[in-house]
């Protein structure tokens, strides 16, 4: 027994912490900090100027190649977006390969490959490395741009732009760039439907010829490969790449606003506001301030820190509030952002500015600074697991001309950052008195909420300034007068009264498909509208004066009471001729900006109670917009129709572009407009 006891006690002595004497209330201390060693890399340069870095990592049998071009940004002007399109097209064709062949080649070896305007990246298992490198080189050296592919890209871009019209985050990002850099700087240019339309193969080819040159390129080779293996491959596939002159550009740096100002962009029906406080900064990667500035930004909002703790944890205004300080070779930006409920927008702005001021005015307490540095330390350590990190360090050291020990000293430098450093950086880079406050949401709410922050400027979703409607309703103006002006501009009351029938036909393109639109009306109140695709009818809406129905691909739904009432009114060709007999009451409601032009707003109440509005351009008198709201089980839904491109048809001015917006947007281009063309009643048959 005794022997057993002794050995038991001995065991306890040898292995402290075994069952019984563990005090779980004690938080374990960290062990000695592990040595963090950055991996090595090899470097060689081809005769044509291509600089190559090789980072060996034999943990897994895989390899990755990144080709990067270092050049000045390009001011795209009226074809904004062509640089990005060029990047996408690299993936879609070379002199000897079609898109399908490229797709097959990449997928066959289970690789990943993507292209951008100044970069090509490919990753695969080592055994397929040569295959992907050859493909990459083919794209870089022998790209071929084909109209078919450009057309596809343009169509997709249009869909993306459309989807983004409703997305407050897309809008905010665009406006951020416009405000920080201005529209005349490459970083602030805006791609729209119009600029996308102007993208041509010629532009893409010129860009490619100018910038895909080895003398401005870096190639990072990372993974299960040695320099001895990499070199002959790179020589083989990139050796024939011709160096060439590369255009350079300089741009004047944007300036911060002279006083903090507010930029408001309207988003219909928004219950939340996307809020950003931002301004440009000059802070280059690798500059002596760079690491200290990062620390300052982290303290403010680079994680769950001051902005997060204030606006989320403490006040509950938002799900998350953060800040970002973007370094750039030319010019970067500071942005503090969050999404907040409408009611707390003003309060949120106050808190954002408060925190920006606090970090400038007061020294960061030692404990808080220590926490932030530990966080950044951990991030750095974890980033080293990815061999791409070392490659990035190697390339950055070269392209930004950093000292060779910049990254190996990173943690040491980080540890040496003081509270005084943080304050100095905050004073240089966080400028609460010279910022833009960007708010995307309900403009009416925002303009009143934020008026006290600074001068308010309104912008549309593309960053164009919107002038507030300074046009007042003239004294004594009546609905009748507005109608008369419209009728006159359209051809005169007398002429319009002779129109008993109208036929219109047009088309609209949607996702690569062409749909045909045709609409006929016959006085006093027959109408039919048909949408078809490739000869097949997709939708028909018809009213014969008594009854009506809508047929969606064979499924017929008869108009109910409300539908019939509405149909009677919508069947009118020029309802402004006589609203009284139709039982419509009208009221002049004010002046609104429609597409940056003032327009008189007329409110209509139809028989049955349904409401609609029509806007008539102040200058021309023409109808520019009509909207109506319908009750649905999901709540009220608004349909807005815009009219433009008025053209003369037999002495009558009629809109040839009709844009219908009801959640989705249809832009119809009328190809044919005819009056009194002898329409038969059978055209309006419901059964």
């Amino acid at each position, binding site marked *: 027994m005794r022997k057993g006891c002794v050995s038991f006690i001995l065991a306890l002595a040898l292995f402290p912490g*075994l069952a019984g004497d563990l005090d779980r209330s004690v*938080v374990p201390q960290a062990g000695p900090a592990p040595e963090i060693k950055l991996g090595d890399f090899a470097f060689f340069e081809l005769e044509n100027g291509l600089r190559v870095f090789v980072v060996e990592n034999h943990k897994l049998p895989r390899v990755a190649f990144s080709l990067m071009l270092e050049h000045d940004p390009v001011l795209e002007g009226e074809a904004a977006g062509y640089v990005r399109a060029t990047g996408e097209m690299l993936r879609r064709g070379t002199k000897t390969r079609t898109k399908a062949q490229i*797709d097959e080649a990449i997928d066959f070896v289970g690789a990943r490959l993507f292209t951008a305007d100044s970069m090509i990246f490919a990753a695969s298992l080592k*055994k397929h490395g040569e295959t992907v490198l050859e493909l990459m080189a083919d794209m870089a050296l022998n790209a071929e741009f084909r109209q078919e592919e450009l057309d596809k890209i343009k169509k997709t871009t249009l869909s993306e732009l459309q989807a983004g019209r409703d997305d407050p985050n897309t809008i905010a990002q665009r406006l951020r760039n416009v405000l920080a850099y201005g529209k005349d700087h490459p970083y602030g240019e805006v791609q729209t439907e119009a600029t996308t339309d102007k993208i041509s193969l010629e532009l893409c080819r010129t860009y490619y010829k100018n910038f895909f040159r080895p003398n401005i390129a870096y190639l990072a080779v990372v993974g299960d490969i040695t320099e001895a*293996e990499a070199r002959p491959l790179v020589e083989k596939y990139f050796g024939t790449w011709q160096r060439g002159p590369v255009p350079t550009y300089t741009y004047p740096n944007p300036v911060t606003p002279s006083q903090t100002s507010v930029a408001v962009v309207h988003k219909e029906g928004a219950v939340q506001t996307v809020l950003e406080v931002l301004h440009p900064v000059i802070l280059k990667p690798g500059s002596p301030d760079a690491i200290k500035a990062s620390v300052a930004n982290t303290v403010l909002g680079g994680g*769950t820190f001051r902005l997060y703790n204030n606006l989320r944890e403490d006040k509950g205004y938002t799900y998350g509030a953060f800040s970002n300080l973007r370094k750039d070779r030319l010019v970067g930006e500071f942005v503090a952002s969050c999404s907040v409920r409408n009611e707390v927008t003003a309060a949120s702005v106050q808190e954002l500015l408060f925190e920006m001021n606090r970090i400038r005015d007061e020294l960061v307490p030692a404990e808080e600074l220590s926490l932030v540095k530990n966080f950044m330390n951990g991030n750095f350590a974890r980033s080293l697991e990815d061999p791409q990190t070392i490659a990035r360090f190697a390339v950055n050291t070269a392209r930004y001309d950093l000292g060779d020990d910049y990254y190996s000293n990173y943690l040491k430098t980080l540890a040496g950052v003081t509270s005084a450093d943080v304050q100095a950086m905050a004073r240089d880079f966080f400028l609460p008195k010279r910022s833009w406050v960007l708010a995307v949401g309900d403009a009416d709410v925002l303009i009143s909420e934020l008026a006290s922050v600074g001068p308010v400027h309104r912008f549309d979703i593309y960053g164009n300034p919107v002038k507030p409607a300074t046009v007042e309703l003239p004294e004594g103006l009546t609905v009748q007068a507005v109608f008369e002006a419209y009728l006159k501009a359209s051809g005169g009351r007398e002429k319009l009264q002779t129109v008993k029938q109208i036929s219109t036909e047009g088309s609209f393109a949607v996702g690569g498909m062409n749909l045909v639109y045709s609409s006929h009306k016959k006085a006093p109140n027959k109408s039919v509208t048909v949408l078809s695709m490739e000869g097949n009818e997709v939708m028909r809406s018809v009213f014969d004066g008594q009854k009506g129905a809508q047929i969606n691909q064979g499924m017929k739904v008869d108009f109910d009471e409300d539908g019939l009432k509405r149909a009677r009114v919508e069947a009118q060709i020029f309802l402004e001729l006589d609203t009284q007999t139709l039982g419509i009451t009208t009221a002049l409601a004010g002046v609104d900006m429609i597409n940056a032009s003032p327009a008189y707003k007329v409110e209509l109440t139809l028989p049955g109670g349904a409401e609609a509005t029509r806007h008539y351009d102040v200058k021309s008198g023409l109808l520019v917009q009509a909207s109506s709201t319908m009750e649905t089980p999901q709540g009220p839904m608004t349909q807005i129709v815009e009219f433009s491109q008025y053209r003369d048809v037999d002495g009558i001015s009629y809109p040839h572009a009709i844009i219908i917006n009801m959640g*989705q947007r249809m832009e119809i281009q009328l190809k044919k407009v005819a009056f009194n063309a002898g329409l038969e009643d059978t055209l309006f048959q419901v059964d």
Partner: protein
Amino acid sequence: MKNSWAIWPLLFVLIPLRAQNIEYTEFTLDNGLHVILHQDNATPIVAVSLFYHVGSKNENPERTGFAHFFEHLLFEGSKHMKRGDFDKLLLNAGATNNATTDQDRTFYYEVLPSNQLELGLWMEAERMLHANILQEGVDTQREVVKEERRMRVDNRPYGSFMEQIFKHAYSQHPYRWSVIGSLEHLNQASLEEFMAFYKEFYVPDNAILSIAGDLDVGQTKQLVNKYFGDIPRGEKPIKRPEIVEPEQTAEIRDVIYDNVQLPGVMMSYRIPPQGTPDFYALDMLMTLLSQGESSRLNKEIKDRQQKALFTGAFPLPMEDAGQSIIFSLVSMGVTPEELEAALEAEIDKVKQELISEKELQKLRNQKENEFVNQNATVFGVAGNLARYHAYFGDTSLINKELDRYLKVTREDLQRVARKYLVKKNRVVLYYLPKAEQKKEKNG
């Protein structure tokens, strides 16, 4: 040797692949906790993870959402951690952490600098032994879960599709309810019920502790014993559901109106559990259909016919019979019916014609690439070690599972297409814009 590289690809095709060998040590403590350790000193970090073999399928049908709720509750503190301490301690240690829940398991992990391993172990032991299950925490996390549901499901276009598929595909099996569960059930549940769930499932004999990274195996064993050795095992055997979902005999279809711009078509087929031969064949089949720009659906329907803006096909690996989902969004102007017909046509092709040898080789290459990359991080390795042990009872599959994929033949692909991708075995959902619902009503 200029040509040496050229013969390598050939060599590797002929030789069965051993991508890399993940070495590991595993053992089970007296209390049933299974422990797996993988040493990798390349980077000074370590991933500590705890795999609890409890998911939504273990829940009481009147109390759904419990498993996921615990994922949140376990951040509320423990006997020796106040509310907020968990995140604060890890932040200060330079670590990241997260947790996920699905139908079969709940998974917690931290990635820490390697000199903080003991902190990670202490924290997970705290959560296993005596997490705070208190009213304040329950009330707070109920609100958080409500917000999460809003963000992930309600406010996200097509966000409810998984929930809807499972609701339609199962009538008896616990997979029929969503992982996030019913907010009503969570509101009705008492503190005692939460405590009972914790006592039943959050026990060492229902868990796997998987650690990968810059560690020393001997020292780590000691630390594991120190913090987990005397945690008592569960008092009763773990309840595992034994319900077998009856065979589906007819196609199930439904239409869901959502805040979306473009209609979506989802087709989901019932498939056998992970690890079965047919599952591997179905996985390869889904790869054939949608992985890469040259895949069947992308090449034909997205690029050539331009009927879809997006297509994807993925099998869900689950412990009981799961689902394989084909998810597609129409291009503007295309109807969901047309898209469905186009998808059906591609599936028919696979049933009618054997794929080519070259295509099979492509699938094998794609799978091999995936297999190698899944162990690229210590976090990935830790998760995979636990998963292979829990579901397959064989941790060595972390090095060998690829072989099962490579055994799948062209005939297998055709066979499983014919057997499983049939109308009576599927759920078809159309996601339509809310505007369409109004149109249909008003005419």
